């Protein structure tokens, strides 16, 4: 019985569990839209690029979520600016911006007199979540969830047929921008638990695990939430019992879920679609 209740005994572990569950509830469903709108590379870039904000917050003793939010805003602006040069191409320009901002974060954190714990900022620190952090995360997860609910129909319409969306009364550019804002929020919240280098897992793995043969976006999002929360809990438990780093264990569990989903689909053909 200790297997299940062990992590629930200490406050630190309970908060870590709560944090991971919260992240799964937002990022699991969001993962479907990250996949539909092909936002994996921008997510990765935001996650790496926000590092200086995180480090500065850690150095100043401020809540990490503030640093993450500031870092994400600056990174997004820099990537948007850099992507304008057509000779270079937005991929390369993004790589330059990310190298620079990520390097800046590392530089600030590795100065000999800087006490910032770079390892936790890079690989996550769910066990270091305080009550305040948890409350802030909960608030942002709720806000993100409300936004996704409100945006649900526009996102589906634009993902399905951006060209025709104008006739439906939508502006595809604005819908995408709204999604990016939710994404930036999710990245900022999740980076405390998973770290700048691993947070991509919770934004990409759930939809990869669920696959494309779903009946509707709503079902895909629900399945994504289940995968994210499930993998998160499994990861934390294995970290508790086996002693591995918590954030990395969660990331591993998420990757395993994605691989598992892909394997299952390779050997179990999807249900035949209803005939016309």
């Amino acid at each position, binding site marked *: 019985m200790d297997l299940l209740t062990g992590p629930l005994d200490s406050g630190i572990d309970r908060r870590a569990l709560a944090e991971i569950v919260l992240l799964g509830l937002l990022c699991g469903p969001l993962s479907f839209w990250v996949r539909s709108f092909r936002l994996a590379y921008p997510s990765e870039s935001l996650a790496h690029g926000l590092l200086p904000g995180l480090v500065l917050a850690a150095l100043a003793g401020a809540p990490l979520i503030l640093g993450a939010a500031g870092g994400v805003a600056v990174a997004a602006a820099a990537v948007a600016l850099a992507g304008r040069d057509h000779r270079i191409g937005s991929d390369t320009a993004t790589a330059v911006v990310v190298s620079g901002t990520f390097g800046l974060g590392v530089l600030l954190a590795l100065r000999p007199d800087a006490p910032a714990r770079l390892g936790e900022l890079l690989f996550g620190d769910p066990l270091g979540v305080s009550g305040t952090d948890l409350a802030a995360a909960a608030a942002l997860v709720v806000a993100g969830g409300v936004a996704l609910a409100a945006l649900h129909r526009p996102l589906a319409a634009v993902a399905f047929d951006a060209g025709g969306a104008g*006739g439906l009364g939508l502006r595809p550019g604005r819908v995408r921008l709204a999604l990016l804002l939710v994404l930036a929020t999710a990245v900022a919240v999740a980076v405390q638990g998973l770290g700048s280098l691993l947070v991509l897992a919770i934004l990409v793995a759930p939809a990869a695990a669920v696959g494309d043969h779903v009946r509707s976006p709503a079902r895909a999002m629900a399945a994504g939430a289940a995968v994210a929360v499930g993998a998160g809990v499994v990861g934390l438990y294995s970290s508790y019992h086996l002693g591995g780093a918590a954030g990395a264990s969660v990331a591993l569990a998420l990757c395993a879920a994605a691989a598992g989903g892909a394997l299952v689909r390779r050997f179990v053909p999807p249900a035949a679609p209803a*005939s016309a």
Partner: protein
Amino acid sequence: MSAALEVRELAAGYGGDPVLTGVSFAVPAGSSVCVLGPNGGGKTTLFRALAGQLAPAAGDFDITGRPAYVAQAAHARLDFPVSALDVAVMGSLAGRWWLPARGRDRDAARAALERVGLAGSEPTAFGSLSGGQRQRVLIARALVQDATVLLLDEPLAGVDPASAETITALFADLAAEGRTLLVSSHDVEGARAFDAVLCLNREQVAYGDPAAVLDARVLETTYGRELILIPESGGAGGVRAVAVQHHEH
């Protein structure tokens, strides 16, 4: 009869010089217009400008309500998990996008699907439908939108003849109830059945009654070398035109 669509000296492009210039025409409500022109001649550009996707580089236009833009069906994501009913329901988004679809929205969607002959296909995944069926679903969506103006970009491309007939009959129906249709096409002969024809080749070549407009000179200016002109047999004079079809890349 008031004009459902009036265009004045419209020019549009994608950032550099406009790829389409000097477009001026007025369409009375309840007419169907066939838009002819070679690939790259500006048909899609015109539709996108009228649909509000492109800001005009010059000129302006008046349009009744918000036009439904049925882009070439190939551009809709076939692997996106929506059923035919889901797509039709999208037509009820306007003005209340943040709220879920109501019962009466679903009813309107069902009625529209029945109207286009797809009543039994409501739960079918959009991607599993045939080309012709997909076009009809998108038209059903336009009906739910209750659009007064419909912009249909090559709706018959790649559609089997039976579906094409159904769709063409649908156009006549829609025009009869007062809606205005702009249908772009490569079928020069089929254009004669429309109320008016608009010929574009990077600029407006001609607009008007097909019988008056579709002569050899206009067709040659519109299509350049893409057109094969076959003289009508039987000594009646006139020219039968066959436009060379290209596949969109």
